[in-house]
């Protein structure tokens, strides 16, 4: 891949602020680059409200919620059981079950596996949502909610 500096010898390519790719431009006199326009400025190009009202979009939100809400409640409850049990039921948690290994240690250790399992389950579920999102956006495009670019 030819580098810009090879194509334009002698030009200083040191990064500058205020350049075309800069984050929010300095001041308000310059036109903003496309990716930096706020929601207000881009309103009108895409019919966001139209998409938001689509049955397929609502189904996507519902599918997400169906996983994320119970999963979040579960991991929060599972996690906070640890400080609550250790703090308020110390004698129970200090009970040794194998040599010096006690319930507290085993429960704390299990938290790692709980986190990993939920993460993997999430990634699996999210793959399905990706497919749903793709078809949803195709439909939105067909209904002219999205102009021009795909």
């Amino acid at each position, binding site marked *: 891949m030819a580098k810009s500096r090879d194509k334009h010898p002698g030009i200083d390519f040191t990064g500058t602020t205020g350049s075309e790719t800069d984050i929010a431009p300095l001041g308000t006199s310059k036109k903003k680059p496309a990716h930096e326009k706020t929601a207000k400025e881009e309103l009108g190009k*895409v019919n966001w409200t139209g998409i938001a009202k689509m049955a397929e979009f609502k189904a996507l939100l519902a599918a997400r919620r169906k996983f994320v809400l119970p999963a979040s409640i579960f991991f929060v409850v599972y996690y*906070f059981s640890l400080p609550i049990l250790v703090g308020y039921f110390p004698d129970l948690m200090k009970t040794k079950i194998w040599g010096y290994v006690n319930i507290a240690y085993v429960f704390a250790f299990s938290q790692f596996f709980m986190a990993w399992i939920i993460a993997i389950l999430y990634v699996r579920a999210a793959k399905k949502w990706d497919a749903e999102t793709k078809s949803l956006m195709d439909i939105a495009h067909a209904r002219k909610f999205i102009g021009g670019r795909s």
Partner: protein
Amino acid sequence: MSIALLLFLVFVSATLVITFWAARRQTGASSYFAANRSITGWQNGLAVAGDYMSAASFLGIAGMIAFQGFDGFMYSVGWLVAYLTVLLIVAEPLRNLGKYTMADVLAYRLNARPVRAMASLSTLTVSTFYMVAQMVGSGALVKLLLKGSGVTFEMAVIGVGILMIIYVVFGGMLATTWVQIIKAVLLLGGTLFLSIMVLAHFGFNIQSFFDAVGHVVYHDKTGVEVTKDFMTPGLKFKPPYGALELLSLGLALIFGTAGLPHILVRFYTVPDAKTARVSVVWAMILIGCFYIMTTFLGFGAATIVGPDHIAANGGNNMSAPLLAERLGGEVFFAFISAIAFATILAVVAGLTISASTSFAHDFFSNVIKHGKAQTPEKEVFVARITAFVVGGIAIAIAILLGEKANVAFLVGLAFAVAASGNLPVIVLTIFWKRFNTAGAVSGLATGLGVSIILILLSPAVRGPHAIFPLDNPGIVSIPLGFIGAILGTLLSGDKGKPELYDELVVRGNTGHGAEKASSH
């Protein structure tokens, strides 16, 4: 001692070389701030893990476990499970709303100036706390490495601080990302090796390992020899407030990660939300394994080196390097210390960059100068001044706290501030239609203010004259942060703009319109 110093200098030079390499590849702000969004899933996972596996995790947790057993493990657990908050709730919407910083997400459908000002202040505060922790760790480390040469903790902190400030001026996001990746590989490798050596010391007999942990011998504060079971909870979190402290800490850790500006910003360095998701999972695997290993390091240090020896040689933060010295001699000590130092350098560089950029750009240009155009030289100048000031403040506070302040604990405070100030407004702007500018400002102000005031009134700062009984303010400041944001929203007449929220929801969930990776 000379091998240690030599290896140490080799590592530092290597990180500086990477910095200069990256600095030469920069082609604009998108490169400086977001590495051109060219980082892949596993690379970002390593980078995020690297950022997370800072002095706090490596030195701090090992140290806490070495001195107080099981209770230190609570930090490890919280820090890993916290990533579920990031994965399930924050990472993808953040990436899809496609901006560079946390403040950009907040400013998306809200009034930019007040929100950016508050978010900038919050970023500065969280970063300073985090940095103070790293400075304490590095000061203790350098002092131990140069043992016998008369270097005091204060001198070490100042020297390291100056080095870090210089480092930051040349570095950028690309540099810090690659330094993090390389450092993460070395840190994981070194920790794995050290853990294996610990188990080897016990003949790979897990039972005898845990038996030894059950009988740690040391001299307590009054000089009496005691034997304690380090597997039991309660050595650190004791009555009367131990249980509440644990809960408060847990809240801060679980909700703090998703509010850490310098971690969140890493999700903008990947091409899309799906990659961001994958990178979080990679990070969780690496971080989880790392934390499991550091508990072996901590227990190993308690049983093989002993708290007495550690206390006499730099304090609890030096448990892991001293363990390396005991098990692998001077070379291994040097190797581990050099990695720990590279770790700290990389993390501090990232923190200082995000903090000084946030101040120079969000606060200075948009707030103080009312959005009037500033010359590039002026903005860079302001960013540099900020780096000096932030670095200077961190040095001063680190010296004030001294080398005995456990770095994991200090970072826990940073998490409390992030969880109280940043997380409520991030969650509410993504999920609550009614949320408005007043709510964001009051939420940030309440969370930030309450957590800092409570820290200043806590036993950690005021000792026996503490007004607030807990070291970690989370259990009070996090709910208050949420309440502040909710009340601020409801009490203000601003009904927000439903059509902007529709856009945010669609963009957040579908990724349409998100900033794509650039080709250069």
